[in-house]
């Protein structure tokens, strides 16, 4: 195939996750279908920004007030390989940053994304069901200005501000059911948005390279087909 799998977009290297090594592909699961809490199926993103170092994450400004670093902070619940650099984050994180910048302006105060509150890989221990965090299009905010969001009043106040910004934004109402509500932070997301950088030619999706399956799950299925089913 003539097209390189690695392109450069606005200073960030874009990678096709199918071209990453086996361990990373197993962690990022590019193109795989996953189910959300309601059982709806969504296809995981395939194109990622590659962030070479912590310094690069700090210095890469997605918007005026949001650096890449803030949206990839994770703790030990993230897959160990993704706690090391180079790190990978779906390209749609740029869109999230754009909305966060609008949100910050509407709040009139700094917006602090929590650890594990930006991108979480499908292998993150908090990723039991598909959530937009796995697309890089969700943010959990624990503090706005000097206010820690731990009361119903504060969370609802900022939920209202976020919802007023755009119909594209969904917030979780105040409540105590994990995944459906939030009671110690504000959750906002844009849904399961996939961004394909303009440098990418999608014909590769239709005609994968020889010996390279289009999606990781196809590889596993192929293996399954080769393995005779065990008899009961």
């Amino acid at each position, binding site marked *: 195939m003539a097209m390189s799998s690695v392109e450069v977009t606005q200073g960030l290297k874009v990678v096709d996750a199918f071209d990453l090594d086996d361990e990373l592909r197993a962690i990022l699961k590019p193109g795989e279908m996953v189910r959300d809490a309601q059982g709806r199926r969504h296809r995981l993103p395939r194109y990622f920004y590659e962030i070479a170092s912590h310094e690069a994450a700090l210095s890469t400004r997605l918007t005026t007030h949001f650096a890449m670093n803030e949206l990839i902070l994770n703790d*030990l*619940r993230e897959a160990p390989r993704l706690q090391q650099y180079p790190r990978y984050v779906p390209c749609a994180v740029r869109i999230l940053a754009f909305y966060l910048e609008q949100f910050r302006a509407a709040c009139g105060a700094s917006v602090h994304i*929590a*650890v*594990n509150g930006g991108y979480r890989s499908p292998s993150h221990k908090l990723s039991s069901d598909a959530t937009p965090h796995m697309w890089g299009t969700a943010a959990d905010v624990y*503090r706005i200005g000097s206010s820690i969001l731990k009361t119903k009043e504060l969370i609802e106040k900022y939920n209202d501000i976020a919802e007023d910004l755009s119909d594209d934004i969904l917030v979780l109402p105040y409540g105590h059911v994990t995944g459906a509500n939030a009671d*110690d932070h504000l959750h906002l997301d844009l849904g399961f948005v996939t961004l394909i950088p303009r440098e990418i030619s999608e014909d590769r999706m239709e005609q994968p390279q020889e010996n390279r399956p289009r999606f990781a799950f196809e590889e596993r299925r192929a293996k399954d087909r080769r393995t005779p089913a065990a008899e009961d």
Partner: protein
Amino acid sequence: MPSNSTQAKERLPIPPAQDSVASAEVSLYRNVLRIRQEHSLLDLGISFYDAETTIQWSYNADQYFHAASTMKLAILLGVFRQVDRGELSLEAPVHVRNRFTSIVNREPFMLDLGRDADPDVYGHLGKTLTVRELAYWMITKSSNLATNLLVDVVGINTVQLALDELDIDGVRVLRGVEDQRAFEAHLNNEVTANGLLKMLRLIADGKAYSQKACDDMLEIMLDQQYRSGIPAGLPKAARVAHKTGNISTVHHDAGIVYLEGRKPYVLVILTQFSADQGRGTAVADVSRDIFNTLAGNLDGDE
């Protein structure tokens, strides 16, 4: 140490001992009865082992008490089990979040920020602290938030597994702290004096997983900042690697006492009293008594 009261002597069912060890044990027993009476304790459990003389002595040491914060020693053990196995790094970052799940009906709960003694951990809400930092604050300032975060990291089953692997009976860990629903359901962490003694002896002897793990645990425990228990009954020069435990009706301390010129002794003192009474100085008094019995001739500076 104050002399024994006539009343306590009259109640003692043990005849005077002839050899020095037996005499010391009789003396200890008399004094424990006196302290228990003086402080109107509802229950008292003591166990110690002196590596210098190899004397082991106990009083009511297999009775279970509410563990209070002494259970944090078991969490520490569980953490270092995982570290020793390479399954956890002390430098791994942990998201500091005040939201936990009750072991009863899986409902979420938050810690009362005002009750925890450790703003060093609360100040990092929304950020991270490393496993090492959380372990340090869990022990040295008895941070409940750090404790529950570490319970979430290693899992309560791992903590119990560590206790089972090391044959530590007498320490039952069911949950983290401030799980009010579990408390109301009488699902509490419990310890005996002998159980904690076994755990501390393994750590002191370098036998709780690896020598490195034990050294790291001891280093943390030696930085304990609450010193009204065992250390309050010792000379200032004594170094104590220990963990206290306090709720409204119990005051415990469990530690390893290092004195210049002799091997250490391991001591566990568990006390229970009525809620309207307050904790008093029973633990320090017992500690002083045991120090005088074991090593009082080393240093009279109290």
